[in-house]
């Protein structure tokens, strides 16, 4: 038996909800469309709750306290967790370009910032990374959903053409990075990256794929 749970906020558009429900029935999937914050989780895939909680805990342990973001699918479960914790300043943006500039400004007054984005956002924000973060030498953690990568469990023709170029783009920008493909990478990966970004005084990227895209 399939279960369709729709926790409907007052502001939800009934037409939109109906469309989503029909879509979910068509896809033979189940789950809750709305979760207990204003963030909407409409997909049945992406990192699981345990990994999301562990990711946020590791960010906090590494003193990351300011997160700019443009939501995407694979890692989006971290957002409600970040939102609930007053330790973090969570900043929604309209473009990854300003995710980078806003986070860079915050770094210059003592915040420890991260930018959470889909890999396609790396291409959008290349100008701002080069002309602000890198040219001024600003430590910045890039939390990148490595969509379109070979290990992306939900890879498709929508993502692969950019995904295969993401690491080359980082190399071209001279941004150091690590690929996070296994859940166990969380044990030290974020702490290592944050230590490195402060040592370099430059952006450092973590590319999440594999276990984080199941």
């Amino acid at each position, binding site marked *: 038996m399939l279960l369709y749970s729709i926790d409907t906020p007052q502001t939800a558009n009934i037409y939109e909800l109906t469309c989503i429900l029909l879509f979910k029935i068509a896809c033979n999937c189940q789950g809750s469309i709305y979760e207990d914050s204003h963030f909407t989780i409409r997909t049945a895939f992406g990192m699981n709750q345990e990994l999301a909680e562990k990711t946020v805990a590791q960010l906090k342990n590494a003193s990351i306290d300011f997160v700019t973001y443009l939501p995407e699918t694979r890692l989006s479960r971290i957002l409600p967790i970040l939102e609930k914790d007053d330790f973090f300043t969570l*900043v929604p943006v309209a473009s990854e370009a300003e995710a980078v500039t806003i986070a860079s400004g915050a770094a*210059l007054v003592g915040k420890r910032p991260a930018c959470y984005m889909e890999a396609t956002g790396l291409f959008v924000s290349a100008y701002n990374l080069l002309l602000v973060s890198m040219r001024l*030498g600003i430590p910045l953690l890039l939390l990148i959903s490595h969509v379109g990568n070979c290990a992306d469990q939900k890879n498709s023709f929508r993502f692969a053409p950019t995904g295969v170029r993401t690491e080359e783009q980082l190399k071209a920008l001279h941004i150091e990075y690590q690929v996070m493909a296994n859940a166990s990478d969380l044990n030290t990966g974020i702490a290592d990256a944050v230590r490195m970004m402060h040592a370099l005084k430059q952006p450092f990227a973590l590319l999440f794929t594999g276990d984080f895209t199941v």
Partner: protein
Amino acid sequence: MNRRACLEALLPFVKDQLVVASVSGQWVWGQLSKHEGNLLLGSMGNALGVGMGLALGLPHRQVIVIESDGSVLLSLFNLPTLGTLHPDNLKVFVFDNEAYSGSRISRPSATAAKTDIAAIARDSGIERAVTVRDLGNFNREMSSTIKEPGLGFVVAKVEETFEHRNAERSDVDLMENKYRFVRYVERTEGKPIFLGRG
């Protein structure tokens, strides 16, 4: 109205604020002000975003952004984000000469046609966005914007001038400017900014 005259009027109002300028404003402002809290970015499309980050990161400190029409148009997505975040300590001054005069051939920007930056700002949730067209009105709006709490956004319609084309350029590069700015913030806020000791 002349941008230099506007910036000269702004100068005595800058005490301990943090000031961010995009590429066009920084030449004149850099000549007028040697304030340690100046962050002169040397690029277009970045000052408003960086200013938002400063304001959100240090909410008790006033932050001033000196922008231009071309720079705002390059990162127009900043306006809805600014209207959403609405930092009360941020004061934005956009000097709109309706041209890309840094190009040396002075091609018109979209504001020379029908685009109204203050109107876009208001419709993005920046309720107090205004346009001023003469120095008297600029002085009045600038003064109240700096003195009164709340997000401020003043678009100053200025004539195109060419002094920046011959202005002597500073030999303080962006990295040196950043460190001077960061040390000023550290000293005045009493906290370290960068981690990673030698």
